[in-house]
């Protein structure tokens, strides 16, 4: 009896050890980035120390003084809010009949939605670039925000999965009470689906806060740059003939960029696992 307990103890210790090793590996880049922001450029490029020897705040003051950081923040926030509001509204509306109603062509539409989930955005970005150029939307946030109001297949799918887990009897009793389909959606489904709205909102905010590809294609001028492009292009300067990357400033800016998604994660944590419903996948 004792040996069984000792064995369990040992197993539990080994498990902890593995968990800690994985945690250290996963957390390493964050530590590297956040301590890097407090190093001087000389130290950053000459020693691999994790803890900075000469602790300095100059990178942070440099970011706020010598770049348009507030413009970049404004653009990123606009982009993030616009796309998230758009996709929450439109994707949940589209998911509702797919989860709850019988109608002609339902299977065809659902198949197309699943199929479009598999088209990578980047395959269509060049024709979209020309198209948005023709209607004069280039160098603005519109090419990214407007499509969000017309439902993303992936989010439609997540909403549908969740709606299917809500008992249909609720719809039926609401119908008997005289509710229309629209009223059922807003009065029954939306309040019950808060975890899914929160999950998709968090995922969408994090995605757009960090998105690089589409802004790189669509945005040219400094006044519409997002933080991600700024991180790539704003912290380099030429000194004589050499091209110098100001690494510690990039790390400092990256540190600041990690904070909002981290807070969002804290806030949305309790929804994140429960909000992604997978039960409907099995059938």
């Amino acid at each position, binding site marked *: 009896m004792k040996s069984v307990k000792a064995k369990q103890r040992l197993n539990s210790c080994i498990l902890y050890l593995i968990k800690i090793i994985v945690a250290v590996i996963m957390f390493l880049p964050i530590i590297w980035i956040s301590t890097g922001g407090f190093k001087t450029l000389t130290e950053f490029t000459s020693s691999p120390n994790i803890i900075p020897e000469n602790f300095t705040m100059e990178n942070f003051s440099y970011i706020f003084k010598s770049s348009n950081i507030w413009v970049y923040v404004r653009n990123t926030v606009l982009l993030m809010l616009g796309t998230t509001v758009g996709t929450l509204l439109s994707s949940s509306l589209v998911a509702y*009949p797919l989860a709850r109603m019988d109608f002609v062509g339902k299977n065809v539409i659902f198949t197309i939605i699943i199929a479009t989930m598999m088209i990578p955005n980047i395959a269509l970005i060049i024709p979209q670039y020309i198209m948005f150029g023709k209607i004069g939307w280039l160098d603005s946030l519109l090419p990214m925000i407007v499509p969000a109001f017309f439902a993303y297949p992936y989010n439609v799918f997540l909403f549908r999965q969740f709606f299917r887990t809500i008992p249909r009897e609720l719809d039926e009793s609401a119908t008997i009470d005289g509710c229309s389909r629209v009223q059922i959606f807003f009065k029954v489904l939306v309040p019950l689906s808060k975890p899914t709205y929160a999950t998709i909102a968090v995922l969408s905010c994090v995605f757009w806060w960090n998105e690089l590809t589409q802004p790189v294609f669509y945005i040219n001028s400094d006044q519409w740059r997002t933080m991600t492009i700024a991180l790539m292009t704003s912290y380099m300067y030429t000194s004589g003939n050499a091209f110098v990357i100001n690494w510690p400033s990039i790390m400092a800016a990256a540190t600041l960029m990690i904070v909002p998604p981290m807070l969002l994660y804290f806030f949305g944590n309790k929804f994140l696992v429960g909000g992604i419903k997978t039960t409907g996948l099995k059938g």
Partner: protein
Amino acid sequence: MSNEKKKKRLSPRKKKDTLTAYAFISPWIIGFACFTLFPIFFMLQVSLTNRKLNGISKFIGFKNYMNMFKSPAFWNSIKVTLLFTIIMVIVTTVWAVIMALLLNQKQRLNGIFQFCYFLPSVIPSVALAYAFRTIFGKEAGLLNAFLSLVSGKNVSVNWLYNHSTVYMAVFFITLFTYNTGQMMLIFRSGLSDVPGELYEACDLDGAGAFRKFFSVTLPMISPLVLFNAVNGCVSALNGSFALLYPLTGESGNPDGMTQVLSLLIYKEAFSNMKVGYACALSVLLFLLAALFGTALFSLSKKFVYYEN
């Protein structure tokens, strides 16, 4: 039976529902027509012209495609894209399953562990790329310093510019991407749905941990593995740009070894200003994505376990 049903006229309720349903779905229909269907046809059309970035274009037939199939850079990028996508999907899915399994073992401090495991995926890919450019750097790189410390010898490898190490380095970095974290969350929720009785039955039979994983856990979460693999393919094709562009540049250093198709498309369209040619490349990327999708779904018929 189904024939009989079809012949029956639609009930008034279903007729009314169909109208309401299409009203709800209309945003997607408009979006699909404007932002997916139209660009597909437009892309096919532009790929037959020598359109430049400034908009000047002339019909040249299949010349872009012929040039493409003769170009070594194109074949190289197809090879790199296939390799990158397949390995990245495998590496990130396996890693996500491992992390989810670890977190599924109920122990104290699990909240902190989940925080540590998920947090890297909220780092913007640019920041991740720049962090690893320095961690894997030759001078003052963290990895070289660590290896020197462990081995006692002076290690100075330029991990991202060395032909034999670049893939290892890049695939290691994919463990920290957004996609891995999202997969982990999905597996987490899937694992918590696996009925506990199945494990108890295993315990009675005296099955070990590995046996349990392969005969209970894996079959039960196989639909999720498929979902994540499909999704991971799209993310690999899509997200490779956001990771590799700041990491190894549009030419995919060293010597195009990491130049996936999306980087080549960007380079052709914006550095070489050949939009027509870039569209022809996009058509190929589109077909490649379709190929991956079909392959995964036909595989799934063989290996995925569905209840009932």
